[in-house]
């Protein structure tokens, strides 16, 4: 009866737990690899060049070797770092774009201010002329 209980309940429960763990592990590892790969592809497709990307590429390659050799801890640690390096590069690119937009906005603002001061001078000149004419 005890043996029957083990066969009926314990084995299927253990089996489902085992399957669940395997699928989660595979999903997690796949996500990490996919995220790094996606970022790497994005940087390549957009021709983004930065030392952080070189570093990320290097870590990505090394992580793949580690994973291939079954060193999963080291592999995923390097993959995570690769993702972070890619993210630093992309954030830097966004910052540069913002800086560029800021420079353009400042330039435009200076031009607008110059135009305003010029027209204010014209207006004041006309007012003075008018006053002089009235006197």
């Amino acid at each position, binding site marked *: 009866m005890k043996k029957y209980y083990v066969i009926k309940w314990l084995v299927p429960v253990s089996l489902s737990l085992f399957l669940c763990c395997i699928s989660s592990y595979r999903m997690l590892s796949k996500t990490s690899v996919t995220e790094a790969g996606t970022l790497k592809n994005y940087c390549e497709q957009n021709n983004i060049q930065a030392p952080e990307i*070189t570093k990320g590429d290097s870590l990505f390659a090394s992580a793949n070797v580690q994973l291939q050799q079954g060193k999963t801890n080291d592999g995923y640690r390097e993959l995570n770092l690769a993702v972070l*390096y890619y993210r*630093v590069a992309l954030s830097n690119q966004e910052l540069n774009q913002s800086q560029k937009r800021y420079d353009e906005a400042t330039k435009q*603002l200076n031009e*607008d201010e110059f135009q305003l001061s010029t027209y204010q001078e014209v207006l004041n000149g*006309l007012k003075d002329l008018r006053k002089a004419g009235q006197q």
Partner: protein
Amino acid sequence: MKKISLLVLVVIMLASLGFASVDTAQKNDTLKQKNDTSSSITVPAPAGSSEAVRLALLDLRSELKSAFQLNTPHDLNAINSYLTALAQIEEAHQFFLENFTKAGSKQNNSPMTGKSSKEKNALSMYEACSLYTVIALIQINKNKLDDNILQASHRSDSIHTELSKVYESIINLERGRASELKGKLEDENAKALALQQEADRRFKELQSELIKVRKDVRGTIISMSDLLFAFDKADLTNDLKTALAKIAGILSVYKKFHVAVEGHTDNIGTAEYNKDLSGRRANNVKDFLIAQGVEATRLSSIGYGFTKPIASNKTKDGRQKNRRVDLVVMDKK
């Protein structure tokens, strides 16, 4: 029992196949990237003991916090990056406290080699924390820049509003000036008209049996009969000189008038003779006016002979009308 064992075996084989497929995909990626060179950036792993690394983590935290306090972002990305970085630092710090900080322990002060799994993890965590911090700082700076861009855009909008007000003021001022000028012009025109009317009135006072004054499109025409000249000659009689002196007096007051002196005859005699006689008479009138003080530049003279009659040459009366010297008074050249 045998069936269950078989099932377990099948499951294990399937799981192994799954791993194998992941490994194959990774192997391909690895081959592609085999030639990548590692770079020499960017996050400095603090050389030294675990305590030095732990303190470096605290430095990262305070740098992050002060950047956040200085430029508090409202962008969700920046806030999220900041919170993530803080959480990672806290986690790493806790890891250091739990694994390396032991009172009186040697490993506190001994340099980290990164050889043991624990040290490898610790250094990797530090590197990750540094990268999270860098990302958060970049996001905070970007947020600040974006804020500045927004402010610049608002300032630009207000400048444009102000600019359109200035434009409007200039236009209004110009409109006012234009209407002022128009008023002045109307005043000038009224004055000129009054002067013209006064001049006409004075010219009309010259009107007599021998001097006729009329208006046409060219201006005021003062027509002087040939009886005011010596017979068949160009010399001016005293009566004519008197009339011309009055005209010169009027011209010296109304400076804007120009006078064309035109000599005319009837059709008796040759055209050449008549042209010459009418020309000499016109010239003499012009010279007399100049002698009376009228500027030569305001005067011109021409002899038309009998080419421009004002009456029929078939009657005695008509021929008498045609023999004349006209002073055409114009208010411009």
